């Protein structure tokens, strides 16, 4: 098959659809295949452990906010896999629109729950549909940072995620992830190469040097821990056109610090990169 498409469903009565691709491009069938394939990586390779998992809402909208690291970040699939398998509800991973323009990868990304990070998209997901959306406010600055800067969270954009949460009246659920930095450490970057390929960044990773081409996709078997922090709600009226910039930036910085502190706490308790 040229384009990865879920196989048509048997036409049931009144059901016109031939695939289960939703309006965001996500297919539960594709997610199911991915979850089955990813389960060993999740539980055997990364041995993911959650702290305070019960803070993730079982229903209703929630904006999951986490730190983002590793050349090809493992945090996104791990968080999505963990929540989807335990709660049985979809998680939409918001990422740079760059993916949409890449053939095959863009389609696969979309079918597996990837959504372009635009405020309009997040607002529709959260307010109109009460879904879980996962955002990494560091954007590509997180995964593209050098190994020397590991676990130092980058700037949280311009606080767009705060405005989205305020406007939709959705709680923010901050999450701190440890392990993704060492899963695929960046040794150095080749900006010239990124320019030629049109990618946001072009990393040379330790995985690439030690494992060759396999290192492009294969992370090291580090122990991954995710800590869910207390959900944050804002005492503002939802649905406004705009919110004071100073308030937005202040709240954005507060959440960044919450995650940063929790990351440091988790690193203090970590005895080994491999065993946690």
């Amino acid at each position: 098959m040229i384009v990865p498409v879920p196989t048509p469903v048997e036409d049931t009565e009144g059901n016109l659809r031939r695939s289960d691709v939703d309006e965001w491009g996500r297919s539960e069938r594709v997610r199911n295949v991915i979850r089955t394939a990813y389960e060993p990586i999740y539980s055997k390779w990364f041995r993911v452990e959650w702290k305070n998992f019960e803070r993730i809402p079982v229903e209703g909208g929630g904006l999951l906010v986490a730190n983002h690291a590793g050349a090809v970040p493992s945090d996104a699939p791990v968080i999505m896999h963990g929540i989807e398998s335990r709660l049985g509800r979809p998680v939409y991973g918001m990422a740079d629109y760059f993916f949409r323009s890449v053939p095959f990868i863009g389609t696969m990304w979309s079918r597996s729950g990837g959504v372009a990070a635009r405020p309009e998209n997040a607002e529709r997901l959260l307010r109109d549909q009460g879904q879980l959306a996962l955002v990494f406010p560091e954007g590509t600055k997180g995964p593209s940072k050098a190994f020397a800067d590991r676990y130092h969270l980058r700037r949280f954009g311009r606080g767009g995620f705060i405005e989205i949460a305020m406007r939709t009246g959705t709680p923010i659920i901050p999450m701190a992830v440890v392990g993704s930095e060492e899963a695929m450490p960046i040794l150095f970057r080749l900006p010239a190469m990124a320019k030629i390929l049109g990618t946001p960044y072009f990393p040379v990773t330790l995985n690439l040097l030690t494992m060759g081409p396999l290192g492009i996709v294969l992370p090291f078997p580090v122990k991954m821990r995710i800590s869910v922090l207390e959900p944050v709600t804002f005492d503002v009226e939802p649905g406004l056109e705009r919110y004071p910039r100073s308030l937005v930036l202040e709240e954005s910085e507060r959440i960044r610090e919450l995650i940063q502190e929790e990351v440091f706490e988790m690193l203090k308790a970590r005895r080994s990169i491999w065993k946690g």
Partner: protein
Amino acid sequence: MGKRVLVTGADTFWGGRVIQALEDDPDIEVILGLGEHDPSVPFDRAEFVRADQTYSILHRLVQATKVDTIIHTFLVSDSTLAKSRALHEINVIGTMNLLAAASAAGSNVTNLVVKSSTKVYGANERDPYWFSEDTRRSTPAKTMVERSLIEAEALIADFAIDRPQTAVSVMRFANVLSGGLATPITQNLSRPLCPILIGFDPLLQFVSAEDVVRTLEHATRLQLRGVYNVAGDGRLPWSEIIAIVGSRPLPLPSLHHRILMRPLAAAGIYEMPTELADLLRFGRGVDCAKILATGFTFRRSSVAAVQAFGEHLRLDRSTGSEPLTYRYEHDVEQFFRHSPAVVHRD
């Protein structure tokens, strides 16, 4: 006194359909159809007036007939129908002349309804998945069809400001699927092999021709003001659309599509309009909350529109295309309208 309605593009698919629908409305006293060529469908009571594409006679017509409502269906959103220059003439200059006539002294126009297209939003990887009426497009328009529609809409927006006594509504329609309507999308879907761009499977949104006509009527009846998106509920992948209508995917290059396809285009074998190539990579969705809030309900969702189109294609394959049975004869039409011998129903 009933409404007096002028419909542009009476010789086109859309103008014809709209006029036929208005003819059933007893509140409408006079219907004038304006077109360059002979109408392709028979009209019951509407009067057909021949005019060139830029409406040079429109000024006189508006003055003489005292129309109060103009339904402007003749904005071309299909770039295969006219060359770039002609598109500009029809969409921009035509609209400009129409607005000039509608705002001249002595004009009675209190309602203007325009049929535009969601093509004004473009299709780009930076787009939100759902455009609302006030979302700006992500990148400047590249193609003449998009540029001319945007320019026409800007003229209309100015008109609405300058003439507050006229209720102006612009309806932006998603791609239409309907039997008998030839657009690049319906033509591609009608083939046994339908092009897809390798590695892309965008989510598309459709509206049925019936809902297009119903929205234009709705906007006229309620004298809506402002811009409205009009599209069936939901979006579905191009591959699924191809499967539903019973075609098969034909993979075409997606990267450097235009350059790689140039030999085929030059040989006149196959050419995909730029705006369709964009659409088949990124898709487009529009949010219709605004039109729904005015009390409009769609008869068909996107999926239902695709399904109905698939049924039409299957029927066509079995029976052959329906031949056109109607030919416009001026004398005959005049006879039916004005001869005392004809018994008019009440």
